[in-house]
C-alpha cells in the first residue's frame, strides 16, 4: 500500500497574512505540505485555521506573503484555480447546495458525461451509483440519493462533503474540522480515509480541535494562536500530552475535569 514517493513539498506558505477590514486574521504564517504526509493544524476558536485553508482553497486571496504550489508561486483568485491544481477541500461551513439532490451535489463542478460532442449529457446512472457506493463506504445510510441535501442531518451532510473531497482529491486534500459533527463510527471512517489518502501519496491538511484525532494520523503539527504559528513540530518531536497542552487551555481543561468529577460524584450521591 505504501506508494510513497520521497517527501517532496507540494505546497508551501511563507509569511502569509490575511486581513478582513480591520481584523488581521492571519500574520506571518509559514507552513509546508509534503506528499504522503498529513499536516495537522490545531488552534483555539477564531485562531485563523479556516482563514488559512480558505486561502489555500482559493476562496480568499492572501494579502501578504507567498503561496507556492509545486514550486510555482500562485495567488488564487477562484477555487477553480485551486481545484485545477489538484487541491480538494472540505469546508467547515460545508459547501453543499441545500436544494440540490445528493448525487448532484456530490459531482457538482466535476460532473461525469456520456456521449460526445453536442450530445454529451450527464451520466446520471453512473453518478448515482458512484455516490451511493462512496457514501456506503463511509458507513452512512442515505436511502434516497435524489433527496435534496437540505433534508439531511448535519453529520450526513458533512459525510457527503468529505466523501466528495476524498473521491476527487488529486494531490492535496484539505479538511476543515471534518469530524466535528460526526459520530464515533463515522469519525473513525474519516480518519481511516485520511490515512489512506496519505498513503496514496497525497498531501493532507487536517484541521481539528481534537488532539487525539490529530495525533492518531498526523505527521506534522502546527498550532495557530491568534493568527500566528505558535508551534510547528514533526510527530517525532512531540508527544500527545505535550500537544494537548500546547493547545491553548489544555491545562485549564485538566483543572476543570477535576472540579467536574467532584461535582458529579456529589450529585450521584444525592440522586441515587
Amino acid at each position, binding site marked *: 500500500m505504501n506508494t510513497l514517493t520521497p517527501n517532496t513539498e507540494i505546497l508551501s506558505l511563507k509569511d502569509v497574512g490575511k486581513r478582513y477590514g480591520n481584523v488581521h486574521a492571519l500574520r506571518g504564517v509559514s507552513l509546508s505540505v509534503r506528499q504522503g504526509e498529513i499536516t495537522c493544524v490545531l488552534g483555539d476558536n477564531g485562531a485563523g485555521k479556516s482563514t488559512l485553508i480558505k486561502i489555500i482553497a482559493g476562496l480568499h486571496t492572501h494579502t501578504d506573503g507567498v503561496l507556492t504550489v509545486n514550486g510555482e508561486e500562485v495567488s488564487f483568485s477562484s477555487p477553480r484555480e485551486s481545484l485545477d491544481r489538484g487541491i480538494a477541500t472540505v469546508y467547515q461551513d460545508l459547501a453543499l447546495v441545500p436544494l440540490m439532490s445528493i448525487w448532484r451535489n456530490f459531482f457538482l463542478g466535476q460532473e461525469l458525461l456520456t456521449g460526445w460532442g453536442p450530445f454529451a449529457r450527464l451520466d446520471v446512472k453512473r453518478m448515482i451509483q458512484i455516490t451511493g457506493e462512496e457514501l456506503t463506504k463511509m458507513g452512512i445510510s442515505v436511502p434516497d440519493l435524489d433527496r435534496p441535501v437540505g433534508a439531511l442531518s448535519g453529520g450526513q451532510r458533512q459525510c457527503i462533503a468529505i466523501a466528495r473531497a476524498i473521491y476527487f482529491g488529486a494531490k492535496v486534500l484539505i479538511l476543515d474540522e471534518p469530524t466535528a459533527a460526526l459520530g464515533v463510527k463515522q469519525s473513525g471512517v474519516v480518519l481511516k480515509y485520511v490515512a489512506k489518502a496519505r498513503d496514496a501519496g497525497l498531501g493532507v491538511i487536517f484541521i481539528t480541535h481534537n488532539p487525539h484525532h490529530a495525533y492518531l494520523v498526523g505527521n506534522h503539527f502546527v498550532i495557530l494562536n491568534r493568527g500566528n504559528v505558535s508551534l510547528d513540530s514533526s510527530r517525532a518531536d512531540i508527544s500527545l*500530552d*505535550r500537544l494537548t*497542552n500546547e*493547545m*491553548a487551555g489544555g*491545562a485549564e481543561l*485538566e483543572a476543570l475535569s477535576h472540579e467536574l468529577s467532584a461535582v458529579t460524584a456529589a450529585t450521584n450521591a444525592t440522586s441515587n
Partner: protein
Amino acid sequence: MEIRTKAGGDAGAGPAASAATTHAGGKATSADDRVSTRPLVSVILSRPEIGSLIGAVALFVLFLVVAPTLRSGASLFTVLYSSSTIGIMAVSVALLMIGGEFDLSAGVAVTTASLTASTFAFQLHLNVWVGVLAALVVALAVGLFNGWLFVRTGLPSFIITLGSFFMLTGLNLGVTKVVSGGVSSPTITDMAGFDSAKAFFNYTLPVGNGLRVPILFWLVLVVVATWILLRTRVGNWIFASGGDPVAARAVGVPVRKTKIGLFMGVGFTAWLLGMHNLFAYSNVQSGNGVGNELYYIIAAVVGGCLMTGGYGSAIGAAIGALIYGVVTNGIVYAGWQADWNKLFLGAMLVIATVVNLVVKNQAAKR
C-alpha cells in the same frame, strides 16, 4: 474518564501551555491584538445609508452645475416635494424590505386609499373626514390581507402582492366605474369637511416659496422609522425576521406578526400619501399609481437596503427617494432632451449604486 485521568498526570505541564492560558483567558474581550480599532470615519462609512448619501451629494452637485434653475429655493422645494411623494412610501417599503418582503401592491394601494375616501364620503353623503377614516381602515386592511395571505400560505411575498396588485388595480377601476359611472373619483370639493381635510393633507407652510406638508410627513416618518429600527424591540425583530426568519423564529421572535405589521405599515403610508393626492388634486383617476411600486423599491435599494432582507435603513430609503427627485427633476432643469430622460435616469441609478458599493468596499477595507 479519559480526560480527567490525563489531566491529573499533566497538570501545569509546560510553560507554553500556561502562557497560552493567560493569553486566551480572563478579560480576553479587549485583549486581541489582531484587531486595530476602526477609525471613526470607517465606522461612519459602514452605515447602510452613507454610500447613497455620497451618491446623492455627487448627483446634486452635478445638477447644480448643469442646471442653474436648481439653485433657486423654489426649485429646491419642488425637488423636495417630488421626492417626498416617493419618499413617504419608500420608508415603509424599506422597513418591509429589511423585514425580508416586497409589496408590489404599494403603488395602487395609494390610489385605492384616495378612491375609497372620496367614493365613501360621496356616496353616503358623509363628512369627508369619515371617508378619510374609512380609507385608513381599507388601507390597513389591504396590508393585513397581504400579510395574512403571506403568512398563511408561505408563498413568496412577491407573488402574493403581485396578486393583490392586479386585484386592487381591477377593484380601483371596477368599483369606481360601478359606483360613479366613470373612471375617476367623484368630486368632493363641495362636501362638508373637505376644506379642513385639505388644510391638513395639503397644507403649504409659508416658508420660502411654500413648503408643502408631505415633506414634513416624510421627515416625521423617517425619524419614527429610524427610531423603531434602532431603538425598539420591534426594530430588532424586523432585522431578524428579514435576516434569517428561521433563526429568528427559533429564538422566539414573533416573525409572522412582525411581517404582518410591516405590510400594514405600507398600508398606513399608502393611506397618508393617498389622502395627500386626493386633497391636492381634488380627484383621482382610477388607473393611477400603477408602476410606482417600482420607484419605492428603487428608492429603498438605492438607499442601501438589501433585497434579501436584514439590512438597510429608513434614512437610506429617504436618500434614495431624494436621488430620484434630484435626477428626475434635475434632467428637466438641465433642459436635456426629453426623449433621453429614461436613459439618464437609468444611468444615474446605476452610477448611484456603484458609488454606494465603492464607498462600502472602501469602508470594509479600513
